[in-house]
């Protein structure tokens, strides 16, 4: 794992789970697989806290354990899974577009809790949906169940590895850790449950009136006395399936843009006749993007989507775009030129791009030092004498993609740090505004006049309000940037993964 990735993981863990979990998680990412006591010793944390942290990390599928010989259990962190926490909003939003609010909340609960039983998810989601409904209306468990089943059928949620049911009643010495199994065919098998019930609204008497210390509330909920019907059957979100969906989305929108470019005037309707469809497909197949290939004429022509090429094109487009935005459009022209011609000499670049020598040279070196372009040496003589060697400029897409990906990780880490800094700088003001809001809320609950409310609101002065506005704007911008850089990360990672698989 690169330093940039480790840094980003550290920031994500700390924001979501606190410093103790962050310490343990980062330590495992750096050192690899380790047993419990070594972790405690190396990090200088108490055994108890290490256990708590590991429980949290395992629950969220960020750490796995393995039993080694002599019964030693070792824990291993999954750095790439930690980085996926950046993408949670995108997963949840996608679920919303595909399965509306119910689907959205199911995926959100699964991501927030790592793993849950189906009955727990259904109950929680029904309660949450009921909160948002009009008075008197409730959400039925059956409806939530149905959506859950649909999510399982389309593989957006999957079962977690489970403890195999042991047939032998002989206890014997217990193994140090359960060996969890998973089978392909059972991974999306929904247990037969008859979940009957409706979501419950949180009663207003349950909510604490201001002034009552919350510590007084009884700790245990009284409603988990019934046995859970699907005890032990846990579900998690299937991130790979979401990634598949994102990839398909990216390809479809890229092709759509392409078609728009060429055929803006042609009407596109749902009833496309066979001839028109043929034309479209031929165009797609001949398109230099090479997304669609023709692989034979059986059945009138077999068309195949070349996923690897598609991902490659997307990655290349990303690189081109970055060069353009960073170095200017003339640099971008040179970049595209070198991409197209594969290898070019200094002189050839100047000629083909029609850019004066001095500028071309300058631009090439800028891109070279940014590792977007590389030099390829071709010796003319066996002694590799520099005066008798060709130096050709070329673009190595894989290594440029890796470089850009690394940069993306750094960018997000910087964005998060800056956001935390901005928030910390204004901590006092933020706390003040929260307190004022709390006071206003409690006053409204007990029925206060507008004049009184206004008085309280004026506790925050006008310049302070402006400061808060600016802060909010900045934090929003930083957050939005994080989300969008993650989109680039997704594209580049998909391309790199696809390339590595083919090797």
């Amino acid at each position: 794992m690169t330093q940039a990735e480790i840094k980003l993981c550290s920031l994500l863990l700390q924001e979501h789970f606190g410093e103790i979990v962050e310490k343990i998680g980062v330590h495992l990412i750096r050192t690899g697989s380790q047993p419990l006591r070594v972790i405690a010793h190396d990090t200088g944390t108490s055994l108890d806290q290490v256990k708590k942290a590991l429980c949290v990390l395992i629950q969220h599928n960020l750490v796995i354990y393995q039993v080694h010989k002599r019964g030693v259990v070792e824990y291993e962190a999954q750095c790439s899974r930690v980085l996926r926490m950046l993408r949670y909003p995108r997963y949840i939003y996608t679920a919303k577009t595909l399965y509306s609010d119910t689907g959205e909340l199911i995926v959100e609960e699964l991501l927030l809790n790592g793993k849950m039983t189906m009955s727990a998810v259904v109950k929680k989601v029904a309660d949450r949906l009921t909160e948002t409904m009009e008075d008197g209306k409730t959400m039925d468990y059956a409806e939530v169940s149905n959506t859950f089943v649909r999510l399982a059928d389309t593989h957006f949620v999957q079962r977690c590895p489970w403890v195999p049911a042991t047939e032998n009643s002989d206890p014997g010495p217990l193994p140090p850790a359960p060996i969890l199994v998973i089978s392909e065919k059972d991974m999306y098998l929904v247990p037969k449950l008859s979940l009957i019930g409706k979501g419950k609204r949180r009663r207003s008497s349950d909510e604490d009136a201001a002034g009552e210390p919350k510590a007084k509330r009884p700790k245990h909920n009284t409603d988990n006395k019934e046995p859970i019907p699907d005890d032990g059957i846990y579900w998690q979100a299937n991130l790979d399936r979401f990634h598949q969906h994102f990839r398909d989305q990216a390809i479809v929108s890229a092709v759509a843009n392409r078609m728009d470019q060429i055929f803006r005037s042609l009407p596109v309707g749902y009833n496309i006749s066979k001839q028109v469809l043929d034309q479209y497909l031929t165009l797609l197949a001949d398109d230099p993007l090479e997304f669609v290939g023709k692989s034979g004429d059986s059945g009138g022509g077999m068309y195949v989507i070349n996923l690897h090429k598609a991902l490659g094109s997307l990655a290349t487009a990303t690189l081109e775009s970055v060069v353009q935005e960073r170095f200017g459009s003339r640099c971008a022209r040179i970049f595209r030129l070198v991409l197209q011609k594969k290898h070019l000499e200094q002189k050839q670049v100047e000629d083909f791009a029609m850019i004066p020598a001095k500028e071309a040279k300058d631009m090439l070196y800028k891109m070279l030092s940014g590792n977007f372009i590389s030099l390829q040496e071709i010796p003319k003589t066996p002694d590799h004498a520099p005066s008798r060697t060709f130096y050709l400029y070329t673009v190595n897409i894989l290594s440029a993609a890796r470089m850009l990906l690394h940069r993306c990780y750094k960018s997000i880490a910087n964005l998060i740090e800056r956001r935390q800094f901005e928030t910390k700088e204004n901590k006092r003001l933020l706390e003040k505004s929260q307190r004022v809001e709390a006071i206003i809320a409690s006053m409204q609950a007990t029925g206060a006049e507008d004049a009184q409310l206004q008085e309280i609101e004026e506790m925050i002065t006008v310049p302070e309000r402006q400061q808060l506005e600016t802060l909010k704007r900045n934090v929003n911008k930083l957050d939005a940037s994080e989300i969008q850089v993650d989109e680039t990360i997704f594209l580049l990672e998909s391309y790199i993964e696809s390339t590595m698989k083919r090797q």
Partner: protein
Amino acid sequence: MAGNKGRGRAAYTFNIEAVGFGRGEKLPDVVLKPPPLFPDTDYKPVPLKAGEGEDYMLALKQELRETMKRMPYYIETPEEKQDIERYSKRYMKVYKEEWIPDWRRLPREMMPRKKCKKGPKSEKAKDTGKGTSLTNTADVLKKIEELEKRGDGEKSDEENEEKEGSKEKSKEGDEEEDDDAAEQEEYDEEEQEEENDYINSYFEDGDDFGADSDDNMDEATY
């Protein structure tokens, strides 16, 4: 030999033209220090994507961040001293549900095992849990009645919760479970610890909980 331009004169070992510099041309300056931390960019960044989806995802992200902080998975570190003690802080404490992992899925070493307890009170709690649990409950009930008579509402609540905690323990006889419950009871105590000046371990079980000390300040306490 053939490549020498003359003695003492600087000569490159390679053909400088191949790299793009003309002969005799002034080479760019040597870089003497690291590039500036925030260099001026000629090209400003592209504006962010804006749209319904992006706005929704932004709101989701911020909500998720807040929600995660309130979940039981977020393990708090002991807070640093705040700059000013705020009265309202006490009433804005977030109530966190406790989360108990499914121990069947985890290595056995993950279960918290408390061999050494931290204080006389907790030790007593553990001991009484194993032994005469019924008498303990009876004792506690008697104490509650006593205190109720004195009208010490606050303390009796605390007693109540303790009673609940120890009753719970008396149901479970297993050692493992005992440990868990003992841990839960400890957690109970910590959770119900009120921010006042009374140190919980100061008073032993069975002592009068200083119901006197509030009223009779002129009497010396030993």
